[in-house]
């Protein structure tokens, strides 16, 4: 009896009941979603593994489908693909302004409901070029992600955003941001970040505003705000009721007048969004976390916030001895 149970167990638990060969998978690399004429447009770039002489070769293929729901649009892809669409390795999600303005919450629900996604891939906003045209260029997701990361680290004129952080931010106050790209003359062009308010596209930040935003958020690594180059920065944020204190520990190329130059810019940036009733730094959430009682009894908290800045600036060591060559001459 035991022997038979054991044999049956072995047969059932081999794990070979529903295997899929690698060359039978279409591994999704980039997924793009647009919304045109009351229909979702789904464009996916997949890596098709084809078995050639016993070796697996990688080919990029673009599939497009249109349907009234996102689920149907995914199903329509199967009319064109004879392979299983494998979503676990998705590296980039591209959304258009129309998709965000019409159905961002539906799109998020789709990602939450499907367990195959890993939700830590980057999300970007595509502007001024039709999604299908851009996707047919078959630019690898890795290339766009690399562009975003390098730009963020070296200039702070943009910031990558992953789906999970985006969802976290939307669940807090329905506001978030997306890095924005466009495609001109066969080149991908980064356009800073676009703000999203109440699941709708609000506006695009200028490059200087994006730098200031990164500086205030403590996400700035290196940048230049003419004539200053910031090499290192740490922003400490504290709150006391409606008073917000920013303390900057900054290493710059020249200390002189840095504080006087940057302070008005920061203040004007914050008050601009305060008057627009957009909590760009999620400061009310900070007060909610730090002083819950005050948060509860203060209506319209954002408009009552006062900002204070203090700086601890350090000049970067310069190992050049004497004057520069052209000045001496």
């Amino acid at each position, binding site marked *: 009896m035991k022997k038979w*149970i054991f044999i049956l167990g072995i047969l059932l638990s081999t794990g070979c009941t*529903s295997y899929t060969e690698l060359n039978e998978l279409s591994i999704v690399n980039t997924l793009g979603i647009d919304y045109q004429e009351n229909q979702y447009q789904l464009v996916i770039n997949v890596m098709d593994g084809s078995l050639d002489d016993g070796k697996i070769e990688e080919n990029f293929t673009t599939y497009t489908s249109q349907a009234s729901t996102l689920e149907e649009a995914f199903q329509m892809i199967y009319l064109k693909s004879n392979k299983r669409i494998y979503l676990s390795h998705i590296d980039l999600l591209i959304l258009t302004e129309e998709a965000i303005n019409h159905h961002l919450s539906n799109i998020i629900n789709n990602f939450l409901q499907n367990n195959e996604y890993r939700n830590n891939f980057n999300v970007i906003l595509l502007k001024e070029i039709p999604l299908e045209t851009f996707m047919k260029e078959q630019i690898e997701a890795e290339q766009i992600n690399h562009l975003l990361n390098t730009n963020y680290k070296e200039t702070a004129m943009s910031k990558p955003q992953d789906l999970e952080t985006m969802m976290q931010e939307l669940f807090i106050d329905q506001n978030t941001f997306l890095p924005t790209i466009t495609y001109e003359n066969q080149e991908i062009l980064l356009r800073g970040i676009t703000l999203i308010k109440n699941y709708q596209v609000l506006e695009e930040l200028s490059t200087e505003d994006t730098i200031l935003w990164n500086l205030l958020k403590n996400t700035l690594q290196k940048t230049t705000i003419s004539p200053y180059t910031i090499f290192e920065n740490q922003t400490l944020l504290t709150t006391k009721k409606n008073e917000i204190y920013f303390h900057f520990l900054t290493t710059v190329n020249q200390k002189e007048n840095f504080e006087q130059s940057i302070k008005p810019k920061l203040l004007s940036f914050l008050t601009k969004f305060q008057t627009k009733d957009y909590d760009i730094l999620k400061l009310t959430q900070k007060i909610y976390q730090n002083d819950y009682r005050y948060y509860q009894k203060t209506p319209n908290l954002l408009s009552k916030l006062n900002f204070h800045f203090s700086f601890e600036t350090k000049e970067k060591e310069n190992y050049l001895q004497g004057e520069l060559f052209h000045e001496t001459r």
Partner: protein
Amino acid sequence: MKLDKITSYQYATLTFFLLNSFSMNVGYYTLTNQCGNDSIFSILLGGIFILILASFIFYLHHKYPEGIVQMMQKKFPIFPKVVFSFFFFLLIGISSIYSFSILISFLHYYVLKEVGLLVISVSLMITILYIVTKGIKTISKISEIFFYFSIFIFLFGSIGLMKYMNLSNLKPLLTTTVRKSLSSSLIYFLSSMIPFFLLFSIPKKEMENTKHFKKLPYLLTLLSILFTFIQLMIIISVLGIHLTNIYQHPDMIIYKKISFLNILERVEVFLAFNNILNSLFVIILGIYLLNQMINSFLKKKKEHISLALIGLIFIIVTTLFTFPLDLYLMTSIALFLLFGIFILCCLKYKDNHS
């Protein structure tokens, strides 16, 4: 040390796994949906209740050295014996089937996505039945071996998630009402009721020297509470309270993030083994106890046939029905009350049947 006896350490590791079944059977989301960030305090408060219950349970197990089935046979005349057996059988049956259904849907959703539910349940049940046929000593030895594995997985997961932790997500604290906090603490406490009761399926004669039987299980009960507390803290600090409330198994979602030097990635299936272990021991001991109860009424012991029957019933019921969490919690409350009555009756009868 006698090799054919259960050591106090093995008994303690069994307690550890049984208590950890909270994360699978009840789930962190039940607490976080009720009282948000304050659910970490619910674990602490519920943990204190559990420790009090644990000392009471270990004391009772010391006082009544027989297992629950032997106790019923020895102490009671036929009528109370049948009544108690029926209700215990029913409650343990429901809770074990509930754990089994949770485990197979977890495996289907997170680990074996392409494999059918029936295939998973049949293969899992065969494995469980095989372990049960080997007896309580083998079960406790398995728990000892997997205890080290469980600790390793916990440390591996925690270290991997450290860089994603944002402690400000844990704030604000103390924002919910006392009633809500108390109710979620009680849910955590109730989740320990069935696991603790299952320990009574082990008769003392199967254990070696009983000197350390209070200290070690107590320590590992404390460790289990601590692990639950740390894990909930990690989940909230990584996901934030809003996302934590959405997922039924938020621990599996955060495991997806773990990456060591961009080399060791996609380890969530490996880490899911801890969740499987936590649920598995409840099912194993549940079926072991159900089988003991059936055989106590049979003159001619037919353990294998009754086991096969139990397995078959488990598979059929889990295929046909879904079990809500409320049913599990109600079963826990009913078991808590029934066990109280049982102990009072034990004091009253005092071996008069024997």
